[in-house]
Protein backbone atom coordinates (compact mmCIF):
# COMPACT_ATOMS: atom_id res chain seq x y z
CA UNK A 1 0.00 0.00 0.00
CA UNK A 2 1.25 3.49 -0.85
CA UNK A 3 2.53 5.67 1.98
CA UNK A 4 0.18 8.09 3.74
CA UNK A 5 1.55 11.20 2.03
CA UNK A 6 -0.04 10.26 -1.27
CA UNK A 7 -3.42 9.72 0.37
CA UNK A 8 -3.28 13.07 2.06
CA UNK A 9 -2.59 14.59 -1.33
CA UNK A 10 -5.73 12.94 -2.74
CA UNK A 11 -7.90 14.28 0.05
CA UNK A 12 -6.36 17.70 -0.16
CA UNK A 13 -7.01 17.71 -3.85
CA UNK A 14 -10.69 17.11 -3.22
CA UNK A 15 -10.89 19.84 -0.60
CA UNK A 16 -8.81 22.00 -2.89
CA UNK A 17 -11.39 21.65 -5.62
CA UNK A 18 -14.12 22.72 -3.24
CA UNK A 19 -12.05 25.68 -2.15
CA UNK A 20 -11.49 26.73 -5.75
CA UNK A 21 -15.21 26.66 -6.43
CA UNK A 22 -15.91 28.73 -3.35
CA UNK A 23 -13.22 31.18 -4.37
CA UNK A 24 -14.55 31.44 -7.90
CA UNK A 25 -18.00 32.20 -6.67
CA UNK A 26 -16.84 34.79 -4.17
CA UNK A 27 -14.53 36.47 -6.64
CA UNK A 28 -17.18 36.63 -9.27
CA UNK A 29 -19.67 37.98 -6.77
CA UNK A 30 -17.26 40.71 -5.78
CA UNK A 31 -15.81 41.75 -9.09
CA UNK A 32 -18.84 41.42 -11.20
CA UNK A 33 -21.36 43.94 -10.03
CA UNK A 34 -20.94 46.07 -13.08
CA UNK A 35 -24.68 46.44 -13.22
CA UNK A 36 -24.87 48.13 -9.88
CA UNK A 37 -21.61 50.05 -10.19
CA UNK A 38 -23.13 51.76 -13.19
CA UNK A 39 -20.93 50.88 -16.11
CA UNK A 40 -23.52 48.61 -17.66
CA UNK A 41 -27.20 48.67 -18.47
CA UNK A 42 -29.59 46.12 -19.85
CA UNK A 43 -32.41 46.74 -22.27
CA UNK A 44 -34.97 44.00 -22.69
CA UNK A 45 -38.25 43.52 -24.48
CA UNK A 46 -39.74 43.97 -27.89
CA UNK A 47 -38.16 41.97 -30.66
CA UNK A 48 -39.36 44.69 -33.04
CA UNK A 49 -37.46 47.41 -31.21
CA UNK A 50 -34.46 45.19 -30.59
CA UNK A 51 -32.64 45.56 -33.92
CA UNK A 52 -32.87 49.33 -33.73
CA UNK A 53 -31.78 49.38 -30.10
CA UNK A 54 -28.82 47.23 -31.10
CA UNK A 55 -27.77 49.71 -33.75
CA UNK A 56 -28.14 52.60 -31.34
CA UNK A 57 -26.13 50.74 -28.72
CA UNK A 58 -23.37 49.95 -31.19
CA UNK A 59 -23.11 53.62 -32.12
CA UNK A 60 -23.24 54.68 -28.48
CA UNK A 61 -20.48 52.29 -27.48
CA UNK A 62 -18.28 53.63 -30.26
CA UNK A 63 -18.74 57.12 -28.84
CA UNK A 64 -18.35 56.00 -25.23
CA UNK A 65 -16.17 52.88 -25.21
CA UNK A 66 -16.52 52.38 -21.46
CA UNK A 67 -20.27 51.92 -21.63
CA UNK A 68 -21.62 48.39 -21.56
CA UNK A 69 -25.06 48.10 -23.08
CA UNK A 70 -26.68 44.68 -23.38
CA UNK A 71 -29.85 44.07 -25.36
CA UNK A 72 -32.20 41.20 -24.71
CA UNK A 73 -35.29 40.13 -26.63
CA UNK A 74 -38.35 38.43 -25.18
CA UNK A 75 -41.23 40.55 -26.42
CA UNK A 76 -42.83 43.79 -25.28
CA UNK A 77 -44.67 42.23 -22.36
CA UNK A 78 -41.44 40.64 -21.14
CA UNK A 79 -39.66 43.96 -21.45
CA UNK A 80 -42.28 45.84 -19.48
CA UNK A 81 -42.24 43.16 -16.78
CA UNK A 82 -38.45 43.24 -16.66
CA UNK A 83 -38.46 47.00 -16.30
CA UNK A 84 -41.03 46.79 -13.51
CA UNK A 85 -39.09 44.14 -11.59
CA UNK A 86 -35.75 45.77 -12.16
CA UNK A 87 -34.31 42.87 -14.10
CA UNK A 88 -33.74 45.30 -16.95
CA UNK A 89 -32.79 48.96 -16.68
CA UNK A 90 -34.86 49.89 -19.72
CA UNK A 91 -37.75 47.95 -21.17
CA UNK A 92 -38.49 48.09 -24.88
CA UNK A 93 -42.11 48.07 -26.02
CA UNK A 94 -43.65 48.21 -29.47
CA UNK A 95 -47.09 49.11 -28.22
CA UNK A 96 -48.59 51.79 -26.02
CA UNK A 97 -48.74 51.09 -22.32
CA UNK A 98 -51.90 49.60 -20.93
CA UNK A 99 -53.81 51.32 -18.13
CA UNK A 100 -52.35 49.09 -15.45
CA UNK A 101 -48.85 49.87 -16.71
CA UNK A 102 -49.27 53.63 -16.75
CA UNK A 103 -47.31 54.05 -13.51
CA UNK A 104 -44.11 53.34 -15.41
CA UNK A 105 -41.86 56.04 -16.76
CA UNK A 106 -41.71 55.98 -20.54
CA UNK A 107 -40.51 57.86 -23.61
CA UNK A 108 -41.49 57.35 -27.21
CA UNK A 109 -38.37 56.98 -29.28
CA UNK A 110 -39.94 56.42 -32.70
CA UNK A 111 -43.02 55.27 -34.56
CA UNK A 112 -43.20 52.22 -36.72
CA UNK A 113 -45.66 51.08 -39.33
CA UNK A 114 -47.26 47.68 -39.23
CA UNK A 115 -47.14 45.97 -42.63
CA UNK A 116 -49.38 43.08 -43.64
CA UNK A 117 -47.31 40.86 -45.87
CA UNK A 118 -47.98 38.10 -48.38
CA UNK A 119 -45.83 36.03 -50.66
CA UNK A 120 -44.73 37.82 -53.85
CA UNK A 121 -46.50 35.15 -55.92
CA UNK A 122 -49.82 35.94 -54.32
CA UNK A 123 -51.98 37.92 -56.81
CA UNK A 124 -53.87 39.75 -54.05
CA UNK A 125 -52.80 43.38 -53.83
CA UNK A 126 -55.22 45.07 -51.50
CA UNK A 127 -57.35 44.30 -48.48
CA UNK A 128 -59.97 46.22 -46.58
CA UNK A 129 -59.64 46.27 -42.81
CA UNK A 130 -62.81 44.20 -42.55
CA UNK A 131 -61.38 41.54 -44.83
CA UNK A 132 -58.15 41.50 -42.82
CA UNK A 133 -60.07 41.07 -39.61
CA UNK A 134 -62.17 38.29 -41.10
CA UNK A 135 -59.09 36.49 -42.33
CA UNK A 136 -57.53 36.50 -38.88
CA UNK A 137 -60.80 35.48 -37.26
CA UNK A 138 -61.02 32.71 -39.86
CA UNK A 139 -64.37 33.93 -41.14
CA UNK A 140 -62.70 34.01 -44.57
CA UNK A 141 -60.67 30.85 -45.15
CA UNK A 142 -59.38 30.97 -48.70
CA UNK A 143 -57.95 33.57 -51.04
CA UNK A 144 -60.72 33.64 -53.66
CA UNK A 145 -62.98 36.33 -52.12
CA UNK A 146 -60.09 38.74 -52.47
CA UNK A 147 -59.22 37.77 -56.00
CA UNK A 148 -56.70 35.05 -55.26
CA UNK A 149 -56.74 31.31 -55.75
CA UNK A 150 -59.01 28.87 -53.93
CA UNK A 151 -56.11 27.77 -51.77
CA UNK A 152 -56.61 27.98 -48.03
CA UNK A 153 -55.09 30.93 -46.25
CA UNK A 154 -52.29 30.13 -43.83
CA UNK A 155 -52.72 32.73 -41.13
CA UNK A 156 -49.61 33.66 -39.16
CA UNK A 157 -49.60 35.68 -35.98
CA UNK A 158 -47.20 36.57 -33.19
CA UNK A 159 -47.17 35.25 -29.65
CA UNK A 160 -49.46 36.78 -27.06
CA UNK A 161 -46.75 38.77 -25.29
CA UNK A 162 -45.70 40.48 -28.50
CA UNK A 163 -46.20 44.21 -28.74
CA UNK A 164 -46.61 43.79 -32.48
CA UNK A 165 -49.50 41.43 -31.88
CA UNK A 166 -51.05 43.78 -29.33
CA UNK A 167 -50.79 46.64 -31.76
CA UNK A 168 -52.36 44.50 -34.49
CA UNK A 169 -55.16 43.38 -32.18
CA UNK A 170 -55.87 46.94 -31.13
CA UNK A 171 -55.77 48.46 -34.62
CA UNK A 172 -57.31 45.70 -36.71
CA UNK A 173 -59.11 43.07 -34.64
CA UNK A 174 -60.81 45.24 -32.07
CA UNK A 175 -63.02 42.98 -29.98
CA UNK A 176 -62.70 40.02 -32.37
CA UNK A 177 -60.35 37.27 -31.34
CA UNK A 178 -57.55 36.00 -33.51
CA UNK A 179 -58.46 32.43 -34.27
CA UNK A 180 -56.51 29.94 -32.11
CA UNK A 181 -55.80 27.89 -35.22
CA UNK A 182 -53.44 30.57 -36.49
CA UNK A 183 -49.77 29.66 -36.65
CA UNK A 184 -47.75 31.43 -33.98
CA UNK A 185 -44.18 32.56 -34.52
CA UNK A 186 -42.03 34.34 -31.98
CA UNK A 187 -40.36 37.10 -33.97
CA UNK A 188 -40.72 39.39 -36.99
CA UNK A 189 -37.96 37.50 -38.74
CA UNK A 190 -39.69 34.16 -38.28
CA UNK A 191 -42.94 35.53 -39.74
CA UNK A 192 -40.98 37.00 -42.64
CA UNK A 193 -39.28 33.69 -43.39
CA UNK A 194 -42.56 31.84 -43.37
CA UNK A 195 -44.36 34.23 -45.69
CA UNK A 196 -41.34 34.23 -47.98
CA UNK A 197 -41.59 30.46 -48.47
CA UNK A 198 -45.33 29.83 -48.38
CA UNK A 199 -47.40 31.19 -51.30
CA UNK A 200 -50.57 31.08 -49.22
CA UNK A 201 -49.35 32.68 -46.06
CA UNK A 202 -50.28 36.02 -44.58
CA UNK A 203 -48.61 37.73 -41.65
CA UNK A 204 -47.87 41.11 -40.07
CA UNK A 205 -44.46 42.54 -39.31
CA UNK A 206 -42.66 45.76 -38.62
CA UNK A 207 -42.84 47.99 -41.71
CA UNK A 208 -39.14 48.70 -41.45
CA UNK A 209 -38.34 45.04 -41.95
CA UNK A 210 -40.20 44.44 -45.21
CA UNK A 211 -37.74 43.36 -47.88
CA UNK A 212 -37.83 42.15 -51.47
CA UNK A 213 -38.75 38.61 -50.43
CA UNK A 214 -42.28 39.53 -49.44
CA UNK A 215 -44.89 42.03 -50.48
CA UNK A 216 -46.73 44.44 -48.20
CA UNK A 217 -50.42 44.64 -48.98
CA UNK A 218 -52.25 47.88 -49.55
CA UNK A 219 -54.82 48.51 -46.85
CA UNK A 220 -58.03 50.23 -47.88
CA UNK A 221 -56.22 51.18 -51.06
CA UNK A 222 -53.31 52.84 -49.27
CA UNK A 223 -49.81 51.53 -49.89
CA UNK A 224 -47.72 50.60 -46.87
CA UNK A 225 -44.86 53.01 -47.26
CA UNK A 226 -42.97 55.27 -44.93
CA UNK A 227 -44.33 58.34 -46.71
CA UNK A 228 -47.90 57.23 -46.21
CA UNK A 229 -47.26 56.67 -42.54
CA UNK A 230 -45.73 60.14 -42.27
CA UNK A 231 -48.62 61.82 -44.02
CA UNK A 232 -51.13 59.86 -42.00
CA UNK A 233 -52.92 58.03 -44.83
CA UNK A 234 -51.63 54.63 -43.72
CA UNK A 235 -52.71 54.45 -40.13
CA UNK A 236 -51.52 51.06 -38.99
CA UNK A 237 -48.76 52.44 -36.79
CA UNK A 238 -47.53 51.89 -33.27
CA UNK A 239 -45.12 53.63 -30.93
CA UNK A 240 -41.71 52.33 -29.95
CA UNK A 241 -41.22 53.02 -26.26
CA UNK A 242 -38.40 52.85 -23.76
CA UNK A 243 -39.89 52.23 -20.32
CA UNK A 244 -38.41 52.17 -16.84
CA UNK A 245 -39.69 51.69 -13.32
CA UNK A 246 -38.70 55.24 -12.45
CA UNK A 247 -37.01 58.21 -14.10
CA UNK A 248 -33.71 56.81 -15.39
CA UNK A 249 -30.37 58.13 -14.17
CA UNK A 250 -26.76 57.50 -15.02
CA UNK A 251 -25.92 55.54 -18.12
CA UNK A 252 -29.57 54.67 -18.77
CA UNK A 253 -30.44 58.35 -18.88
CA UNK A 254 -27.47 59.12 -21.12
CA UNK A 255 -28.37 56.37 -23.54
CA UNK A 256 -31.99 57.49 -23.71
CA UNK A 257 -30.87 61.08 -24.26
CA UNK A 258 -28.68 59.84 -27.10
CA UNK A 259 -31.63 57.98 -28.60
CA UNK A 260 -33.90 61.01 -28.75
CA UNK A 261 -31.12 63.38 -29.74
CA UNK A 262 -30.91 64.45 -33.40
CA UNK A 263 -28.00 62.05 -33.86
CA UNK A 264 -29.96 59.09 -32.54
CA UNK A 265 -33.07 60.07 -34.46
CA UNK A 266 -31.12 60.28 -37.71
CA UNK A 267 -29.93 56.73 -37.18
CA UNK A 268 -33.49 55.53 -36.60
CA UNK A 269 -34.88 57.39 -39.60
CA UNK A 270 -32.24 55.98 -41.87
CA UNK A 271 -33.30 52.51 -40.74
CA UNK A 272 -36.89 53.12 -41.80
CA UNK A 273 -38.53 54.34 -38.61
CA UNK A 274 -40.68 57.41 -38.22
CA UNK A 275 -39.97 60.20 -35.74
CA UNK A 276 -42.05 60.05 -32.55
CA UNK A 277 -45.18 62.12 -32.17
CA UNK A 278 -44.64 65.35 -30.27
CA UNK A 279 -44.90 65.54 -26.53
CA UNK A 280 -44.87 61.88 -25.61
CA UNK A 281 -42.55 61.75 -22.67
CA UNK A 282 -43.61 61.31 -19.07
Amino acid at each position, binding site marked *: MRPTIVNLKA*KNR*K*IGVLRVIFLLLTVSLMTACSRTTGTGIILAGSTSVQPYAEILAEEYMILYPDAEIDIQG*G*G*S*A*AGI*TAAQSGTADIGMSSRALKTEEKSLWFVEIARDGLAVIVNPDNPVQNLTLNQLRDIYATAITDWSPMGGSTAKI*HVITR*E*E*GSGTRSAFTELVMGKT*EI*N*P*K*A*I*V*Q*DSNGAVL*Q*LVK*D*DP*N*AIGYISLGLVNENVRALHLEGVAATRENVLNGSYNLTRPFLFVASSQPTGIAKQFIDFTISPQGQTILSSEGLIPPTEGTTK
Partner: protein
Amino acid sequence: MKKFKENLSERIFLLIALSALSVLALITVFIFIHGLPIITKVGIFNFVFGMKWAPSQGAYGIFPMIVGSVSVTLGAAILGVPVAICCSIFLTEFAPSMLRNIFRPAIQLLAGIPSVVFGFWGVLYIVPLIRNYLGGPGLSILAGSIILAIMILPTIISISEVSLLALPQQYREGAFALGLTHWQTIYYLLLPAAKSGIVAAIILGLGRAIGETMAVIMVLGNAVAIPQSILDPARTLTTNIGIEMGYATGEHQQALFATGIVLFIIIMILNASAQYITRKK
Protein backbone atom coordinates in the same frame (compact mmCIF):
# COMPACT_ATOMS: atom_id res chain seq x y z
CA MET B 1 -5.91 9.45 13.45
CA LYS B 2 -7.04 7.04 10.82
CA LYS B 3 -10.48 6.79 12.41
CA PHE B 4 -10.75 10.54 12.43
CA LYS B 5 -9.86 10.78 8.74
CA GLU B 6 -12.40 8.07 8.02
CA ASN B 7 -15.12 9.94 9.84
CA LEU B 8 -14.12 13.18 8.21
CA SER B 9 -14.28 11.78 4.72
CA GLU B 10 -17.63 10.19 5.41
CA ARG B 11 -18.91 13.50 6.76
CA ILE B 12 -17.65 15.37 3.71
CA PHE B 13 -19.39 12.99 1.36
CA LEU B 14 -22.56 13.19 3.42
CA LEU B 15 -22.44 16.96 3.26
CA ILE B 16 -21.94 16.92 -0.50
CA ALA B 17 -24.74 14.43 -1.00
CA LEU B 18 -27.11 16.36 1.23
CA SER B 19 -26.47 19.68 -0.49
CA ALA B 20 -26.88 18.17 -3.94
CA LEU B 21 -30.06 16.36 -3.04
CA SER B 22 -31.51 19.36 -1.26
CA VAL B 23 -30.92 21.50 -4.34
CA LEU B 24 -32.77 18.97 -6.44
CA ALA B 25 -35.52 18.85 -3.86
CA LEU B 26 -35.63 22.64 -3.86
CA ILE B 27 -36.33 22.86 -7.53
CA THR B 28 -39.07 20.22 -7.32
CA VAL B 29 -40.71 21.97 -4.39
CA PHE B 30 -40.35 25.35 -6.10
CA ILE B 31 -42.13 24.14 -9.21
CA PHE B 32 -44.93 22.53 -7.23
CA ILE B 33 -45.41 25.54 -5.00
CA HIS B 34 -45.62 27.90 -7.95
CA GLY B 35 -47.89 25.68 -9.95
CA LEU B 36 -50.39 24.31 -7.46
CA PRO B 37 -52.29 27.55 -6.73
CA ILE B 38 -53.57 27.82 -10.28
CA ILE B 39 -54.54 24.15 -10.35
CA THR B 40 -56.53 24.51 -7.16
CA LYS B 41 -58.10 27.71 -8.45
CA VAL B 42 -59.10 26.41 -11.86
CA GLY B 43 -59.65 22.83 -10.78
CA ILE B 44 -57.48 19.95 -11.91
CA PHE B 45 -60.11 18.70 -14.33
CA ASN B 46 -60.59 22.07 -15.99
CA PHE B 47 -56.87 22.58 -16.22
CA VAL B 48 -55.99 19.27 -17.80
CA PHE B 49 -59.07 18.93 -19.97
CA GLY B 50 -59.86 22.58 -20.60
CA MET B 51 -60.03 23.18 -24.32
CA LYS B 52 -59.10 26.80 -24.32
CA TRP B 53 -55.71 28.34 -23.60
CA ALA B 54 -56.02 32.12 -23.63
CA PRO B 55 -54.15 33.65 -20.70
CA SER B 56 -55.19 37.18 -21.54
CA GLN B 57 -58.77 36.10 -20.90
CA GLY B 58 -57.95 33.96 -17.92
CA ALA B 59 -58.52 30.68 -19.74
CA TYR B 60 -56.01 28.03 -18.70
CA GLY B 61 -56.94 24.77 -20.32
CA ILE B 62 -53.97 22.72 -21.52
CA PHE B 63 -55.82 20.00 -23.39
CA PRO B 64 -54.82 21.29 -26.83
CA MET B 65 -51.20 21.09 -25.74
CA ILE B 66 -51.66 17.61 -24.34
CA VAL B 67 -53.10 16.53 -27.67
CA GLY B 68 -50.16 18.18 -29.39
CA SER B 69 -47.58 16.47 -27.18
CA VAL B 70 -49.23 13.08 -27.43
CA SER B 71 -49.73 13.21 -31.21
CA VAL B 72 -46.22 14.32 -31.95
CA THR B 73 -44.73 11.75 -29.59
CA LEU B 74 -46.90 8.94 -30.95
CA GLY B 75 -45.99 9.97 -34.46
CA ALA B 76 -42.32 9.93 -33.55
CA ALA B 77 -42.75 6.47 -32.06
CA ILE B 78 -44.57 5.09 -35.11
CA LEU B 79 -41.89 6.41 -37.42
CA GLY B 80 -38.87 5.93 -35.22
CA VAL B 81 -39.30 2.71 -33.28
CA PRO B 82 -39.31 0.28 -36.23
CA VAL B 83 -36.26 1.96 -37.74
CA ALA B 84 -34.48 2.01 -34.38
CA ILE B 85 -35.13 -1.64 -33.64
CA CYS B 86 -33.97 -2.59 -37.13
CA CYS B 87 -30.80 -0.61 -36.53
CA SER B 88 -30.09 -2.25 -33.19
CA ILE B 89 -30.60 -5.66 -34.80
CA PHE B 90 -28.28 -4.49 -37.54
CA LEU B 91 -25.63 -3.60 -34.98
CA THR B 92 -25.82 -6.85 -33.06
CA GLU B 93 -26.62 -9.39 -35.74
CA PHE B 94 -25.94 -8.28 -39.24
CA ALA B 95 -23.11 -5.80 -39.32
CA PRO B 96 -19.58 -6.99 -39.92
CA SER B 97 -17.34 -5.71 -37.16
CA MET B 98 -15.77 -3.05 -39.35
CA LEU B 99 -19.17 -1.56 -40.15
CA ARG B 100 -20.13 -1.85 -36.52
CA ASN B 101 -17.24 0.41 -35.58
CA ILE B 102 -18.51 3.00 -38.02
CA PHE B 103 -22.22 2.69 -37.32
CA ARG B 104 -22.02 2.95 -33.56
CA PRO B 105 -20.04 6.22 -33.53
CA ALA B 106 -22.37 7.47 -36.26
CA ILE B 107 -25.31 6.96 -33.91
CA GLN B 108 -23.40 8.77 -31.17
CA LEU B 109 -22.80 11.62 -33.58
CA LEU B 110 -26.50 11.77 -34.36
CA ALA B 111 -27.16 11.95 -30.64
CA GLY B 112 -24.82 14.89 -30.27
CA ILE B 113 -26.44 17.16 -32.84
CA PRO B 114 -28.11 20.06 -31.03
CA SER B 115 -31.88 20.20 -31.24
CA VAL B 116 -31.84 23.66 -32.81
CA VAL B 117 -29.87 22.22 -35.71
CA PHE B 118 -32.49 19.52 -36.17
CA GLY B 119 -35.20 22.17 -36.06
CA PHE B 120 -33.37 24.31 -38.60
CA TRP B 121 -32.87 21.38 -40.95
CA GLY B 122 -36.50 20.47 -40.52
CA VAL B 123 -37.68 23.96 -41.42
CA LEU B 124 -35.41 24.06 -44.45
CA TYR B 125 -36.18 20.66 -45.92
CA ILE B 126 -39.00 18.75 -44.25
CA VAL B 127 -41.53 21.56 -43.85
CA PRO B 128 -41.44 22.66 -47.53
CA LEU B 129 -41.69 19.03 -48.65
CA ILE B 130 -44.83 18.55 -46.62
CA ARG B 131 -46.27 21.86 -47.74
CA ASN B 132 -45.65 21.25 -51.42
CA TYR B 133 -46.60 17.59 -51.66
CA LEU B 134 -49.07 16.96 -48.88
CA GLY B 135 -50.65 20.34 -48.32
CA GLY B 136 -51.17 22.53 -45.33
CA PRO B 137 -48.68 25.06 -44.09
CA GLY B 138 -45.99 22.45 -43.71
CA LEU B 139 -45.55 23.35 -40.06
CA SER B 140 -47.39 20.36 -38.76
CA ILE B 141 -47.54 17.38 -36.48
CA LEU B 142 -46.10 15.32 -39.31
CA ALA B 143 -43.05 17.55 -39.51
CA GLY B 144 -42.63 17.37 -35.74
CA SER B 145 -43.00 13.60 -35.73
CA ILE B 146 -40.38 13.15 -38.43
CA ILE B 147 -37.84 15.36 -36.71
CA LEU B 148 -38.50 13.87 -33.28
CA ALA B 149 -38.30 10.34 -34.70
CA ILE B 150 -34.80 11.14 -35.96
CA MET B 151 -33.87 12.67 -32.62
CA ILE B 152 -34.91 9.72 -30.48
CA LEU B 153 -33.28 7.09 -32.71
CA PRO B 154 -29.95 7.12 -30.82
CA THR B 155 -31.66 6.64 -27.44
CA ILE B 156 -33.69 3.66 -28.55
CA ILE B 157 -30.91 2.12 -30.61
CA SER B 158 -28.24 2.24 -27.91
CA ILE B 159 -30.39 0.84 -25.12
CA SER B 160 -31.92 -1.85 -27.33
CA GLU B 161 -28.47 -2.82 -28.49
CA VAL B 162 -27.38 -3.32 -24.88
CA SER B 163 -30.38 -5.58 -24.26
CA LEU B 164 -29.69 -7.65 -27.33
CA LEU B 165 -25.99 -7.97 -26.54
CA ALA B 166 -26.82 -9.11 -23.02
CA LEU B 167 -28.50 -12.21 -24.37
CA PRO B 168 -26.31 -15.27 -23.89
CA GLN B 169 -24.68 -16.66 -27.00
CA GLN B 170 -26.28 -20.03 -26.27
CA TYR B 171 -29.57 -18.69 -27.55
CA ARG B 172 -28.11 -18.10 -30.97
CA GLU B 173 -26.04 -21.27 -31.02
CA GLY B 174 -28.94 -23.40 -29.90
CA ALA B 175 -31.14 -21.93 -32.58
CA PHE B 176 -28.58 -22.55 -35.30
CA ALA B 177 -28.21 -26.09 -34.10
CA LEU B 178 -31.94 -26.51 -34.53
CA GLY B 179 -31.71 -25.29 -38.12
CA LEU B 180 -33.47 -21.96 -37.74
CA THR B 181 -32.53 -19.18 -40.14
CA HIS B 182 -30.87 -16.09 -38.74
CA TRP B 183 -34.04 -14.10 -39.03
CA GLN B 184 -36.13 -16.78 -37.42
CA THR B 185 -33.72 -16.76 -34.51
CA ILE B 186 -34.01 -13.04 -34.15
CA TYR B 187 -37.74 -12.83 -34.56
CA TYR B 188 -38.87 -15.83 -32.52
CA LEU B 189 -36.11 -16.00 -29.95
CA LEU B 190 -33.93 -12.97 -29.46
CA LEU B 191 -36.46 -10.18 -29.74
CA PRO B 192 -38.92 -11.72 -27.30
CA ALA B 193 -36.08 -12.43 -24.89
CA ALA B 194 -34.85 -8.84 -25.05
CA LYS B 195 -38.36 -7.49 -25.01
CA SER B 196 -38.23 -5.80 -21.63
CA GLY B 197 -35.04 -3.96 -22.44
CA ILE B 198 -36.36 -2.85 -25.80
CA VAL B 199 -39.62 -1.65 -24.32
CA ALA B 200 -37.69 0.28 -21.69
CA ALA B 201 -35.62 1.83 -24.47
CA ILE B 202 -38.75 2.90 -26.29
CA ILE B 203 -40.24 4.42 -23.16
CA LEU B 204 -37.08 6.42 -22.54
CA GLY B 205 -37.15 7.55 -26.15
CA LEU B 206 -40.73 8.70 -25.69
CA GLY B 207 -39.67 10.62 -22.61
CA ARG B 208 -37.04 12.39 -24.68
CA ALA B 209 -39.61 13.20 -27.36
CA ILE B 210 -42.09 14.66 -24.89
CA GLY B 211 -39.38 16.85 -23.39
CA GLU B 212 -38.08 18.31 -26.61
CA THR B 213 -38.68 22.04 -27.04
CA MET B 214 -36.55 23.96 -29.53
CA ALA B 215 -36.84 21.74 -32.57
CA VAL B 216 -40.56 21.51 -31.98
CA ILE B 217 -41.04 25.28 -31.68
CA MET B 218 -39.44 25.62 -35.09
CA VAL B 219 -41.44 23.03 -37.01
CA LEU B 220 -44.77 22.60 -35.27
CA GLY B 221 -46.42 25.95 -35.94
CA ASN B 222 -47.49 26.56 -32.33
CA ALA B 223 -51.19 27.05 -33.01
CA VAL B 224 -53.19 26.93 -29.80
CA ALA B 225 -56.08 24.91 -31.19
CA ILE B 226 -56.49 21.16 -31.10
CA PRO B 227 -55.07 19.77 -34.35
CA GLN B 228 -57.53 17.97 -36.59
CA SER B 229 -55.05 16.16 -38.80
CA ILE B 230 -51.36 15.45 -38.93
CA LEU B 231 -50.99 18.27 -41.42
CA ASP B 232 -52.28 20.81 -38.92
CA PRO B 233 -50.02 22.95 -36.77
CA ALA B 234 -50.08 22.29 -33.05
CA ARG B 235 -48.46 23.22 -29.75
CA THR B 236 -46.96 20.93 -27.13
CA LEU B 237 -46.71 21.27 -23.36
CA THR B 238 -43.02 22.12 -23.62
CA THR B 239 -43.29 24.65 -26.43
CA ASN B 240 -46.12 26.36 -24.60
CA ILE B 241 -43.78 27.01 -21.71
CA GLY B 242 -40.98 28.00 -24.04
CA ILE B 243 -42.96 30.55 -25.99
CA GLU B 244 -44.71 32.20 -23.07
CA MET B 245 -42.34 32.05 -20.14
CA GLY B 246 -40.54 35.27 -21.01
CA TYR B 247 -43.53 37.44 -20.32
CA ALA B 248 -45.91 35.41 -18.20
CA THR B 249 -46.75 36.98 -14.86
CA GLY B 250 -49.11 36.19 -12.02
CA GLU B 251 -51.63 33.49 -12.81
CA HIS B 252 -50.26 33.00 -16.29
CA GLN B 253 -46.85 32.19 -14.82
CA GLN B 254 -48.43 29.83 -12.32
CA ALA B 255 -50.16 28.07 -15.19
CA LEU B 256 -46.79 27.53 -16.85
CA PHE B 257 -45.38 26.05 -13.66
CA ALA B 258 -48.48 23.88 -13.47
CA THR B 259 -47.69 22.69 -17.00
CA GLY B 260 -44.24 21.88 -15.63
CA ILE B 261 -45.89 19.80 -12.91
CA VAL B 262 -47.84 17.89 -15.53
CA LEU B 263 -44.61 17.21 -17.43
CA PHE B 264 -42.93 16.14 -14.19
CA ILE B 265 -45.68 13.62 -13.54
CA ILE B 266 -45.62 12.31 -17.10
CA ILE B 267 -41.85 11.75 -16.95
CA MET B 268 -42.11 10.06 -13.56
CA ILE B 269 -44.79 7.71 -14.85
CA LEU B 270 -42.68 6.89 -17.89
CA ASN B 271 -39.58 6.27 -15.79
CA ALA B 272 -41.50 4.15 -13.30
CA SER B 273 -42.90 2.07 -16.15
CA ALA B 274 -39.48 1.59 -17.67
CA GLN B 275 -38.04 0.52 -14.33
CA TYR B 276 -40.98 -1.77 -13.62
CA ILE B 277 -40.63 -3.46 -16.98
CA THR B 278 -36.91 -4.03 -16.62
CA ARG B 279 -37.33 -5.29 -13.09
CA LYS B 280 -40.07 -7.72 -14.08
CA LYS B 281 -37.49 -9.58 -16.08
